[in-house]
């Protein structure tokens, strides 16, 4: 026997999933209800989680000594300064926490960004093995392609802005454009794959395919008929209604 709360949650899930999908027909109240509920829940949950973290930090370590308490209060004060974003008069105060956050973030990532995303990538490119007898296809072919394509794309941007390109560089430009088009095509293809995967996941939920609850399926049929019926019916009524002067 399924728990009543779980069942209600499933029904609500079906309702809001279908409500969100109704945007495919047109903007409508079902969609607006679902959108607002989702946004409200997401923001509310996020705020609650962050507040929980603030409380746990206090109980976990910052309440242990007076110096740490002072540090905690200082952090709270800085966080309150964020709200001056909504004041025209004291807007400048908001820039202080912003500067701290941006500075901390950049400082933290700069620690290793040169190694992780620059030097390691150059090293990997330089160490490419151009002949792998055990795997001519795909490894050898892939490595040769990477060996040629990566510098080609870099050179394309390196010389952007020059008035005239030397003869050989024109061929590099053409190659780089094709490589970038292939890259963008791959990214777009994967984007479509992701969108469909998201849709398939929700469709599995609506159809009650295990481990989703099978109770979702009949509700899906009923609610989809109601939602479609109301939207199409409203449109038809509007169409048949004589225009008023």
């Amino acid at each position, binding site marked *: 026997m399924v728990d009543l709360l779980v069942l209600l949650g499933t029904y609500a899930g079906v309702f809001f999933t279908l409500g969100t999908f109704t945007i495919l027909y047109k903007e409508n109240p079902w969609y607006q209800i679902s959108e607002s509920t989702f946004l409200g829940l997401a923001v509310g949950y996020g705020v609650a989680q962050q507040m929980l973290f603030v409380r746990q930090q206090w109980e976990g370590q910052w309440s242990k000594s007076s110096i740490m308490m002072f540090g905690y209060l200082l952090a709270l004060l800085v966080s309150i300064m964020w709200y001056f974003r909504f004041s025209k008069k004291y807007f400048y105060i908001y820039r202080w926490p912003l500067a701290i956050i941006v500075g901390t973030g950049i400082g*933290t*990532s700069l*620690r*290793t960004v040169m190694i*992780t995303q620059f030097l390691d990538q150059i090293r990997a490119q330089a160490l490419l093995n151009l002949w792998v007898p055990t795997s001519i296809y795909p490894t050898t072919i892939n490595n040769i392609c990477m060996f040629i394509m990566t510098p080609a794309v870099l050179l394309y941007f390196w010389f952007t802005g020059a008035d005239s390109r030397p003869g050989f560089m024109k061929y590099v430009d053409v190659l780089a454009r094709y490589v970038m088009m292939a890259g963008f095509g791959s990214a777009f293809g*994967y984007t479509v*794959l992701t969108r469909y995967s*998201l849709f398939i996941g929700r469709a599995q939920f609506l159809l009650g395919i295990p481990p989703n609850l099978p109770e979702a399926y009949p509700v899906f049929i009923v609610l989809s008929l109601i939602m479609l019926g109301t939207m199409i019916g409203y449109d038809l009524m509007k169409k048949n209604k004589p225009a008023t002067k």
Partner: protein
Amino acid sequence: MSFIEKLQNIDRRWLYLLAWIFVLYPLINPLGLPVPIQKESTAWNKAVNDIPDGSVVIFSCMFSIASIPELYPMTIATFSHLLTKNCKIIVATFWADGALVFDQTLLKQFDPAKYGKVYGKDWIDLGYVPGAETAMRAFADDMVNTFPKDYINSQPTGSYEIMKNIKTAKDVDIIVSFESGTPGVGEWLRQWNTPYGTKLIVGCSGVSAPGMAPYLQSGQLSANLPGLTSTAEYELLIKRPALAVAGVDAVSMSHLLVVLLVILGNVGYFATRGRKS
């Protein structure tokens, strides 16, 4: 207006209807299309299989509720695989929804106790910490103080047996992360892999896969499981066919539809291009 011109101006709602049909039909009537095993899923399976006994694993759901349909099947499959291994699992996330995803969806499917895993001794759920990359750095330097209390019991993290010898990133052997954006692979690499040499494997949504390729090629990333199709292959490899295998027919059919529509669109474009000029 000719048929070709009509094709150029087709109402998008008909295309959505077609998409529904192409997805729902194979889900209701599975077609049983073959699922060839590719290198990504094989590498992922090997990476999880090769985790040595006694290893410490960070298991991280770095995605929101919105990405559940694509990332949930691979998260379930990998978690179930990990539970069969003799390793210690620390669940932590830097996405607000991540803790909820793990607690409300994954734990409903699996009771680690059934696999002989004791909470607080063999695995622990630390929940969520805000702060993204800064928090990930803090977690690497001091795990207990970054997550002062666990997520499930709200007890001091340091009081659990599992955390007695796990203090910093140096004590962790591998990160298994599932993600759909930032913070994600870049942050793990910058704050864990580069400074501490912690091994990293990432399951991601399809849209993130091209971004993973440079890290995979350079060896910074040990394995990558992109999207639903690779997950289906992985489910078959671990002999646990589930949601991804059930959905792979729909993936194939939906791709078929996209290819057909691209061909139709191009036919319409090239047929009418001369007339317009």
